[in-house]
Every structure is written in C-alpha cells, then in structure tokens.
C-alpha cells in the first residue's frame, strides 16, 4: 500500500526522489560521505560552504555536544572554490542525486567568482546566515540589500539559486528581497548564535568563542520561520532545516510549508537516520491517506 505513495518532489529544477536533503556542513568536502548519504537514502546532498580562498576554520574545540543539540564553531573551513570545484565534479561522477553547492561571499562579484568554479553542481546555495564566521553569513543577512545584489549577480549563471536564511535578523524582509532578486528556493534556517562556558575552566568552550546552535533545540524556531515564510510567500519553494531527528519533525516542516527538509546534526547518530526518516514519512502518508508527499505541504495553514 505504502508503495504507491509519491515521495518525489521537485524544487526549482531539481527532481528529488524524496523530500530529504543533507544540509550543508556535515558532509564536509568528502565525496565519500556524500555517496554514503545517497546510499542511505538522501535525495540530495549539499556541500560544505565554500569561500573563494581556502579557510582553515577556528581552532579546536569546534564542537560542544548538548543534550538537545550541538554548538559548533567550525568557522567555515573549506579548501576554497577551485578545489571545491574538483570535489563537486567528482561528486557528480559518482552520485545520481543532485548536488547543491553552498557558497559564502560578502560581495556579488566574489559570489559569482566562487560559483563559476561550481557549475557542475545542480544548484548554488547562498549561505546568507552562518553566525560565526566574520564577514560572511549573518553579517550579510543583516544587510538585505546586499543579499539581493548577490542573488541577482548569481542569477547570471545557469543554475538555480537557493538562499539560506538565518532566524536572526529580519527573515521576511531578507526573503522578500531575495525573491525579488530572483532566488529560486528559500532554505530556513541556519544555526542560532550561541555559546557555552565551562564553569570549571571559567572559559568559553569553543575555540571560536561563539558557535552555532543546531539540533532539537532550534526546531521550534525553524518551524516558525518556515511557517512565516509560507504565510508570506505561499507556494514559494522552501526547504526546512533545523532539528529534524525523526520523520515527525520532517512532517512538521512540510505541514508548515516546506517542500523539502534538510538534516544535519541528526547525522551524528549515523547515516541510518536518513532511511528511518524517509520511511517514517512514507508510513505517515499511508496512515493519513495521502497519495503524495506534496499534498501535505502547507496544510497547517488551512483555516
């Protein structure tokens, strides 16, 4: 019975066999990990955010595990756009699912330069929201005009442009500017800016002092962001990210208005979580009498 249910979704020009995407960061720059994610059932993979030049990221500790999530201050380590181009081309050779190339840039021309290395990818995702790397991310999101300029510059290239938003700053304003500038997909949300102090060391734990909070802790904030975006831009494609640990959070995102769902922190428990989320969605759809995953997108808004 569940076999007949349509799990496929189309986001911009990307055909996804199910709504589950591996979000940026957790697969690093490893083609091998991307392949494992695909084998585990992911419908698309996102690269680590690439900057133009290579970055080594923040010193260790870069991660702090909480009971209800993670704090990370990776600091956008990446080998730079040229090397990432090689990784993406290699990934496209060995993967059948779409590869989304995440980029971080502080100016339109820089963004285009980066993206030009990544034309083998199926989409460009502008990370407008990384909260712990100076000059990137949250700082560009606090300037909605700049986000719009970058998006419109990227639209000169032949790839769909995803814009990944932060829950800090004015979500709706940035989203509307991005959409006006031609963005094809909104991705919400990135991590929340947080930190932890060890009381015995009397010091911030993370090498970068500040870090990004992810996992279950941010899920209610992420659902709210997706719900608000859907309300403001009904029908516009949204990828919900933040605290998906089981099919239930994934379904919550879709009811809130996401067409697809990204997963990052949950992979710390192993890749098997991907399969269990996808089959959980399938079972839910069957139990609730849906014929396709698309039918449930945005349903929580119905009065």
């Amino acid at each position: 019975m569940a076999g007949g249910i349509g799990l496929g979704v189309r986001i911009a020009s990307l055909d996804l066999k199910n709504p589950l995407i591996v979000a940026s960061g957790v697969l690093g720059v490893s083609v091998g990990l991307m392949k494992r994610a695909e084998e585990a059932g992911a419908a698309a993979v996102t690269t680590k955010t690439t900057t133009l030049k290579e970055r080594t990221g923040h010193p260790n500790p870069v991660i702090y595990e909480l009971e209800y999530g993670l704090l990370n201050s990776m600091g956008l380590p990446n080998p730079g756009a040229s090397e990432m181009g090689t990784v993406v081309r290699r990934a496209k050779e060995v993967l059948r699912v779409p590869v989304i190339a995440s980029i971080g840039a502080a100016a339109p021309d820089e963004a285009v330069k980066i993206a030009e290395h990544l034309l083998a990818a199926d989409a460009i995702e502008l990370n407008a929201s990384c909260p712990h790397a100076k000059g990137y991310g949250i700082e560009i999101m606090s300037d909605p005009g700049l986000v719009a300029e970058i998006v419109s510059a990227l639209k000169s290239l032949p790839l769909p442009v995803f814009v990944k938003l932060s829950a800090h700053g004015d979500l709706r304003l940035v989203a509307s500017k991005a959409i006006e500038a031609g963005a094809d997909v909104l991705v919400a949300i990135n991590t929340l800016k947080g930190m932890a102090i060890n009381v015995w060391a009397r010091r911030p734990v993370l090498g970068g002092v500040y870090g990004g909070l992810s996992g279950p802790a941010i899920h209610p904030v992420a659902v709210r962001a997706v719900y608000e975006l859907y309300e403001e831009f009904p029908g516009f494609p949204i990828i919900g990210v933040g605290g998906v640990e089981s099919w239930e959070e994934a379904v919550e995102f879709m009811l809130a208005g996401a067409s697809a769902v990204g997963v990052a922190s949950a992979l710390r428990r192993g890749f098997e979580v991907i399969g269990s989320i996808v089959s959980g969605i399938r079972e839910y759809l069957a139990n609730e009498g849906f014929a396709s995953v698309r039918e449930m997108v945005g349903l929580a808004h119905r009065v």
Partner: protein
Amino acid sequence: MYLLARVERVSKLCENVNEYLLRLDRKLGSKPGQFVMVWMPRVGEIPISVAWEKDSLLKLIIARKGVVTSYIHNNIREGCRFFLRGPLGKGFEITQGEALIVAGGYGAAPMLYLASMLREAGSRVTVALGFRENRNVMLVEEFEKLADRVFVATEDGSVGFKGQLTELVSSILSSSRYDIVYTCGREQMMERVVRMAMNAGIEVQASLERLIKCGIGICGSCTLEPQGLRVCWDGPVFNGYKLIQVDDFGKWWRDASGKRVPLPT
C-alpha cells in the same frame, strides 16, 4: 559536558613522552583503541588514545609534538585538571587466539590496554615495538609484564633488533603462526604491516590518525576517500580488508581546510 579529571601522577616514559594518570569524576567506559578529546582551556583540544582505564582511573600517554602537547608537558603537574570528552570512535575488536601487536613510537599507548584485554580474553600475545633511538624507547617492561613475548627494534640498534620495525615484523610473521595482527604507529609503517598480514592471510586491525576536529563524525575533517570513512567515528581502528581499499591509506591526509594533501612523513 566535559568530564573533569585530576592528575594523580605524571611519569616520564622516555624523552618527550609522559604518562598521565588521571582520576575522573565518573567512569569513562572505554574499549582499547578508543580515544578522548583532551581540552586544555585557552590552548586547544586534541585526540589522545586511552592507554588504560580501570574504575575511575585513566592513563593517557602523551608525546610532545606541538602547541597543545607542549603545553601539557610544560604545565600539567600533579593536581592539575584535565577536561575530557569521550570515549570516542570504535576500538579494536578482540579476536581470541595468537595475537601480534605491532606498535611504533607513541603508537604503543593504546596497545598496553589492548594487550591486557587480550590476555583477559585468553589470547597469547606477542608484542613488537619499534623506536628510533635509545632515548625513544619506552614501555618495554610494562609490555613484558603483560605479554608472552616482547620484541624491540630500534633504527640505530641501541636496543633489540637493529632496523625498521617492519623488518622485525616480517621475521616474526615468518617464524610463527598468528590469528590476528594489531597495529598502531606511523601510517607508512602500518600500511606495510597491513599488507604483510593480508598477504599471509592473517586478520589485521590498524589504528589511524587524521586531523580530528569534532570527534563525533559530524564535520568531515577526518574522512578517508573514496569510502567516506570517518577516522573519529567509523575508526580510528579499521580492518585490513577495508583499509587496502582506501586510496588515502598511507598516502593522503586532509589539512585543516579539508583539502587532501600528501600524508606527512
């Protein structure tokens, strides 16, 4: 969520290698081959293998190498604190029978713990240790207490067999039958040991090092291609049959940016 530990005793094992006996605020519960991340506030955080554990006592063996290890050697005395998280990774699998342990330099650290577990499981244990010079030799007596036979190789011949550890291993393997080989140390050495064992049809497990950042399999920093094996999560201990399919084994490392660069020698 760091475990808090107090240094009970610092012992010098040889030039540039110290042993730290720690008392934890709770039991770690590790297996040989697993590691912990050691955080030195204001300095850094590095991976260190569990050298031994019992109840709430833990031994770490730390070689002076760069920033964090030098800080530890220079500053950490009895009574000081260690901040730890772990145990991380997958350790050695205990195979009963005739076991050969091959360890180079501070690669000997996790092997003491392994040897004692093997003995508990009823295995016979032979140990082959390799060091550069006399002043690097360590832990020989400790292994002699635990193991059935201990061989030592030094490159300058000052102690035991003169020459490469791999030469010693080659002769050990040809003179006796083993069910399993365990190895830890420089990767180029381990690569040769893995091939020798595989060629001889013997199961082999090796413990690898890569740049560990998150330590929990979530950042990709330590991955091996093309399989996407994470040293911190799928390893650090891998089986020989997996390793010989890894392009990076003995050849490639990832730098802090994630770029694949030649393995440091």
